[in-house]
């Protein structure tokens, strides 16, 4: 699979522009742009410059350690990895249904994670671009600048994130890298004091989330030409939805739609995700390229995350967020919205959904129950899928009879969006950079497109030993005397 501007014909003769590091994203990445002598864009690529390799070093570890270990992939969305792994290992310990307490504690933890991560992204990372302009004064284009000019917005962002982290602390034991979810359940419930403490703030939190949706919507609608076209491209959409088609970010069935909104597949049991999804490895990136198997690599790539989820579900089961979803769908006039910057609007709708879900769970007495763990008959394999803040997250493990992990496959949200992010920056490069003298403000346009996806680059690089390579041994006269070629491997664990 390749797309326009992915690979230039004669890269050695072109000028190279590098944006490194990418700022205001999680992890470390860079973008390379190749320009010809007339400054026309010939090639644009998003690269991930760090390497994680959790799929490899999880091998040999006891299965119950995995949810705690793999969450170290990330400091922003550790809960997502923690829960996806725990869901996979529920299957390994033979559990298909948790106790109501365990299920609701995990949901509470997850919606706390969605809340804090979405707040972090919108307020701290993206709002400087959106409030000040993509090529505004770079010295002010940051959260400190936002706090100076819009103190209420910055304050609400900080407090929303703090509340989400408190929800995580109460359910997982720590704000970052806790231990709450264990195979077959959870290790703690919520106490009355913890519940009261969170309930004290939840009404403010919901009000602030509603304001955040209004802000994201206003930004989009007041500059609708720019927001609709910037980095926009059509693609398929993928996410989990609840069995009834409603939004559910913790558990559900897989649904994919094409760019017109028509169903590609629906009600798919994610425990056999590989029947529907597969990945391609390309020589220039540590990050793999997933696609829908039935459509092939060229047509099968897709978007995940808020823009996909809000449009993939049939309804949102909380009232304020559902009203906002309806307004967003109306904005699309019967067609899916493919505007990259609409990620922000939909992300804030999910922020509101998370807050309303937390409120509902805090009023549910099950979260104070004492039936925490169940066990069944051991199985060899487990798949856990969750809708992480950035999109669909798949954890897949095979465990041997001695209880050790022997294979792991992690397809993280940012990896699902790999092709989509590359498409977005290529569109932006062509529209805004082509033939022009490059400035910091123009290059920031590229970063704005990447930021819309809220990528987590540190989570996304696991292709150890799978990258294709081509080695040539050249003698002193420049003659090739030996060649070693290894093609990419693609295998389900």
């Amino acid at each position, binding site marked *: 699979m390749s797309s326009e501007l992915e690979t230039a014909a004669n890269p050695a003769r072109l000028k190279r522009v590098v944006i490194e590091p990418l700022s205001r994203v999680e992890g470390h990445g860079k973008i390379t742009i190749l320009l010809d002598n007339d400054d026309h864009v010939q090639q644009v690529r998003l690269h991930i410059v760090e390497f994680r390799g959790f799929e490899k070093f999880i091998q040999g570890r*006891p299965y*119950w350690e995995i949810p705690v270990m793999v969450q170290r992939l990330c400091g922003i969305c550790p809960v997502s990895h923690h829960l996806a792994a725990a869901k996979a290992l529920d299957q390994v310990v033979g559990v298909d249904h948790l106790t109501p307490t365990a299920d609701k504690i995990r949901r509470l933890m997850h919606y706390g994670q969605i809340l804090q991560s979405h707040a972090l992204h919108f307020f701290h990372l993206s709002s400087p671009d959106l409030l000040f302009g993509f090529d505004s004064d770079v010295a002010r284009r940051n959260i400190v600048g936002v706090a100076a000019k819009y103190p209420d917005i910055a304050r609400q962002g900080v407090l929303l994130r703090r509340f989400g982290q408190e929800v995580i602390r109460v359910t997982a034991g720590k704000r970052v890298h806790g231990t709450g979810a264990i195979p077959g359940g959870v290790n703690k419930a919520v106490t009355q004091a913890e519940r009261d403490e969170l309930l004290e703030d939840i009404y403010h939190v919901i009000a602030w989330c509603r304001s955040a949706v209004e802000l994201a919507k206003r930004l989009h609608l007041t500059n609708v030409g720019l927001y609709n076209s910037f980095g926009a491209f059509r693609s398929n959409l993928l996410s989990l939805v609840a069995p009834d088609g409603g939004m559910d970010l913790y558990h559900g069935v897989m649904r994919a739609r094409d760019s017109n909104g028509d169903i590609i597949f629906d009600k798919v049991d994610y425990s056999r995700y590989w029947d529907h999804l597969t990945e391609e490895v390309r020589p220039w990136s540590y990050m793999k390229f997933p696609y829908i198997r039935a459509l092939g690599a060229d047509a099968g790539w897709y978007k995940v995350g808020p823009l996909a989820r809000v449009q993939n579900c049939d309804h949102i089961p909380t009232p304020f967020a559902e009203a906002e979803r309806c307004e967003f769908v109306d904005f699309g006039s019967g067609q899916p919205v493919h505007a990259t910057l609409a990620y922000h609007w939909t992300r804030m709708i999910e922020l509101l959904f998370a807050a309303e879900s937390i409120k509902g769970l805090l009023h549910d007495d099950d979260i104070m129950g004492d039936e925490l763990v169940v066990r069944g008959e051991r199985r060899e394999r487990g798949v856990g899928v969750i809708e992480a803040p950035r999109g669909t997250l798949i954890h897949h493990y095979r465990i041997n009879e001695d209880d050790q992990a022997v294979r792991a496959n992690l397809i993280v949200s940012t990896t699902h969006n790999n092709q989509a992010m590359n498409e977005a920056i290529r569109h932006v490069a062509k529209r805004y950079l082509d033939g022009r003298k490059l400035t910091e403000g123009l290059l920031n346009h590229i970063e704005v497109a990447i930021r819309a996806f809220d990528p987590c680059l540190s989570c996304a690089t696991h292709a150890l030993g799978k990258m294709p390579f081509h080695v040539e041994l050249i003698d002193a006269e420049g003659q090739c005397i030996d060649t070693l070629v290894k093609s990419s491997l693609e295998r389900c664990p």
Partner: protein
Amino acid sequence: MTAEGKTASFQLDGATVPFEPGQTVIQAALAAGHYIPHLCYHPEFKPHGSCRVCTVEVDGRTVASCTLQAQDGMEVLSQSDRLRKEHQTLVQMLFVEGNHFCPSCEQSGNCRLQAVAYDLDIMSAELDHLFPNRPVDASHPEILLEFNRCILCELCVRASAEVDGKNVFALSGRGITKHLIVNAESGRLADTDIAVTDKAMEVCPVGVILRKGVGFRVPIGERRFDRQPISAQAREDAPRRPTTGNEDST
């Protein structure tokens, strides 16, 4: 009691510590609520003196307090800048000799090595890691051996031999290559008669001998060293009568 009928005592960092005849310095200190860092000492076993983390100073000489007999009028120093540095270095050497990954270790919060390190304000190993190759033994259906964390305290060796009467464990090799082994022809734990109710299952100060499938059941905040630092729990390690393995362990 001294010959004059007074309770025998020694001075520990300026505090008077009474002791019973036959007690070592660390036994008397812990019984009186005075903490001296330690790892291979266990209140139910004879002092061993292998880790040296309990090093104190007596008459300008450094000595392991777990093997030093208490004497009336003795002056013992356990807290000084020099001793603290020595304690830190001893613990740091234990960290680099094994493979200790606290962030994903199920003993985190209950691990004595970690607790002692926190108590000594050790924020990094400072020394070069040796990264030994120590594969785990997962062969037993109920018990996992995570050799990477072994600090060679020999408590499991002693518990298995002296209490359980089984000799499941032993140390092999010398010097830096010394390591814990399983006493079976195959070298596999599955081929021994160890049971989850054995005393050897209880005594590991780190996270080598683990009951399978129960890791992380205790939430953060309720683990032993979440409640109080190890230095505030001295009396829990006061000498006590030996018990057999945990009969309730199911």
